[in-house]
């Protein structure tokens, strides 16, 4: 289910990127944020997904805010966004990282 949600978003981003249509994405709820998940199949769309996640960070008012300046709720929301972004960056550039 998580992968499906991630893929749907990726697909939407891909379509919007190719059709040059200005698409405004709604702000994700906290619950929706928790269900986001990206697998290796998301790697071809990494730039669009990172842009999307940073846009969501902006909606939540946590983009480029030092974590020390955020209260606990917003710190955890920011943590979730940044962790998703870095998971993607690390997994897509280092596919063998977790293989033994």
């Amino acid at each position, binding site marked *: 289910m998580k992968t499906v949600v991630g893929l749907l978003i990726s697909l939407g981003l891909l379509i919007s990127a190719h059709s040059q249509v200005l698409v405004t994405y709604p702000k994700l709820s906290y619950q929706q944020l928790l269900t986001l998940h990206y697998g290796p199949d998301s790697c071809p769309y990494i730039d669009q997904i990172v842009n999307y996640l940073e846009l969501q960070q902006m909606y939540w008012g946590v983009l480029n805010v*030092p*974590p*020390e300046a955020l209260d*606990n709720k917003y*710190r955890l929301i*920011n*943590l979730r*966004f*940044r*962790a998703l972004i*870095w998971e993607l*960056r*690390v997994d897509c*550039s*280092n596919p063998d*990282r*977790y293989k033994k």
Partner: protein
Amino acid sequence: MKKIATFGLCLLALNAAADCYLHSNIRMTRQNIVAGPTDFRRMATPDAVGSHCVVSYRVYIGNSWHNAEGSANAKTESEACMRARDIGRGYVLAEVEPTQMSADMQMVCSDAPEIQIHPVRVGDVIWESETDLHTMPAERPYFVYKGTRCRYFTEQASRDNNLITYQGVICKIDSTPDSKWSVVDKF
């Protein structure tokens, strides 16, 4: 005026106080090193053979970073320093209380600023061992991002009587062994 001069001298004396470590006889082996060696700093001096090089660096053993040191002689400075970097020549330096010192102890002292873990901010240029490793061993290995070597770090902080853990990413500024690291993200 005298008071100001005395105060200035006291400050100078405090700043000049060198950090001293006991030169242990603990030889290092690759097996007990969790991370590193890293943060190499070298000091080479001419000697009868050619050059004597002392390299100090940091290794993560157990649950913390430790200072270590190796030395070697060779005809050229670069060769001596390359040999001194060899883990097999290295010794862990142990912190020692001044009251525990005895005359036969071999001490290593340095006026260079001591490397310690401390809170960092995005954009800071630091030594790698100024941040702690990630608490989860699976997240500790280096990874490549935009062609540079990076790793996750964690930072413990206390806020409103709660212990919180920040995470972040540091990346090496260049590929040389003596390179510092840049804090690229913290969350």
